[in-house]
């Protein structure tokens, strides 16, 4: 892999850009691999990368039914933060946030990490108390967050109307080191670096069955033939239930569509990320100038990648009260992603009832921020066969044991 650098740009400028290589290989699938990962979203690709990088396992295929990064990873609103409530969550989200800080250099790929600060608005008394609690939990966890007064909120985001009347701003939880990153670039960066380490990324190939013998996984059936493997990682977000059915177990997961939209591009007007969970809306401005707006999740299971119209209407109606200047903006695009929701709004990482088969799912509306940490943890778990320290609390067995990691407040509706 030829390194990307300022020098490379200069060099290519002098030879009509004829020397750029393909970012990743497109190999024919082999008949067998040591490890097969299903799903080339951020989590699957990061898992493959860390398996190769941290654990020296390079005989890996990542199998993707569409194009890499085309699932939720390429559909999300890219908010990165680690101010969750429970210690287990803080550990893995903060690990991920830390890795994001150095990820462009690590992958030699500009993922455009922008720690511009994430502001979670409290618009009801209940929410304000919830955020005070998280702020204090964060202090103990070593995650730097602070509470802002309405006046401080206004000075950071002058376009905000803080007086309501329906949704007044009573305060906010602020994580200065949170922010955003370029979602496609995260998938592309991991894909390029993993491919360079020998990982085969097989796109346009759907896994249609999982084969097993004596309680142990033996491989997968795909639209391009059977592939055998010693270890299997299921990392398919909204399709986790479908893959679990193939493997012969059920998950505490329900899939729903979560939607987002972007406005037409305008001049820079907001330089932080604002989340308003009471009204199910959040907003940031992309480098192109579009306002990126996240909405609510549908109220019933579905696999549509579209979302109900009334949810987007509710989100926009409420956001207009808080950000009056957006009322005349046109919507440029709207879309949905199929998110995998657990009851406690925390992910599932670890072993499954099928031997040799591991799963990473349940990130629901909020797993972009965790991609590096989650890939790191699942890779360690798959390499040793036993849950790694970061992953252990998130095992599937926690439901049977009643050991929930309740993040329904910190996760808000949206992430």
């Amino acid at each position, binding site marked *: 892999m030829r390194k990307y650098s300022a020098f490379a740009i200069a060099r290519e400028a002098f030879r009509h850009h004829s020397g750029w290589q393909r970012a990743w290989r497109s190999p024919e699938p082999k008949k067998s691999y040591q490890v097969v990962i299903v799903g080339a979203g951020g989590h699957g690709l990061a898992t493959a990368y860390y398996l190769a990088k941290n654990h020296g396992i390079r005989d890996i295929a990542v199998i993707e039914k569409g194009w890499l990064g085309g699932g939720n990873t390429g559909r999300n609103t890219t908010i990165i933060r680690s101010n969750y409530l429970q210690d287990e969550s803080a550990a893995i989200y903060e690990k991920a946030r830390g890795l994001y800080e150095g990820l462009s250099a690590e992958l030699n790929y500009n993922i455009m990490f922008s720690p511009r600060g994430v502001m979670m608005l409290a618009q009801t008394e209940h929410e304000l108390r919830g955020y005070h609690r998280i702020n204090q939990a964060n202090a103990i966890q070593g995650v730097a967050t602070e509470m802002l007064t309405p006046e401080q909120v206004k000075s950071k985001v002058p376009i905000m109307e803080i007086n309501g009347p329906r949704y007044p701003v009573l305060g906010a939880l602020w994580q200065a080191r949170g922010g955003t990153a370029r979602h496609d670039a995260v998938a592309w960066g991991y894909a390029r670096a993993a491919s360079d380490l020998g990982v085969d990324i097989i796109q346009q190939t759907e896994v249609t069955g999982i084969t097993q013998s004596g309680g142990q996984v033996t491989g997968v059936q795909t639209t391009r033939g059977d592939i055998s493997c010693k270890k299997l990682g299921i990392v398919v977000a909204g399709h986790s239930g479908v893959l679990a059915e193939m493997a012969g177990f*059920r998950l505490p*997961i*329900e899939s729903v569509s979560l939607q987002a939209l972007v406005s037409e591009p305008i001049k820079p007007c907001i330089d932080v990320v604002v989340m308003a969970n009471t009204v199910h809306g959040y907003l940031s401005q992309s480098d192109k100038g579009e306002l990126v707006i996240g909405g609510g999740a549908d109220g019933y299971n579905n*696999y*549509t990648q579209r979302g109900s119209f009334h949810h987007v209407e509710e989100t926009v109606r409420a956001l207009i009260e808080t950000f009056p200047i957006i009322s005349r903006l046109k919507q440029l695009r709207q879309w949905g992603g199929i998110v995998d929701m657990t009851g406690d709004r925390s992910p599932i990482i670890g072993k499954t009832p099928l031997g040799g088969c591991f799963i990473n799912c349940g990130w629901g509306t909020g797993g972009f921020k965790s991609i590096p940490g989650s890939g790191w943890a699942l890779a360690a778990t798959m390499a040793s066969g036993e849950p790694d320290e970061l992953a252990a609390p998130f095992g599937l067995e926690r439901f*049977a044991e009643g050991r929930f990691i309740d993040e329904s407040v910190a996760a808000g509706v949206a992430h």
Partner: protein
Amino acid sequence: MLLLTCPYCGVSAEETEFHGGGEAHLKRHADGSSDDAFTAYLFERKNPKGIVFERWRHVYGCGKWFHAARCAVTLEVFGTYSAQTLKPPKSIITSIKAKRPDWEEIS
């Protein structure tokens, strides 16, 4: 936007008049059941990429709970029916099979 018909009061309305209540026909396991059965009842869901049988409540209408058969991919509604049944009635199964001959119910 889903359009549902409440089998109790007969009103057809948009989804905003109703509230989804998740998977229908769960067998309630309680005292005396095994831990596995109880866990499955509480947490494990079929979540199929296909036909779902689910509970709905006519919240802004008669207030009653009922059941619906729907495709989670196309959002086509195959019918709604009484909540006082342990499994989908024959008429619903027939209307699903008419359009999806290959469909098999997941047990």
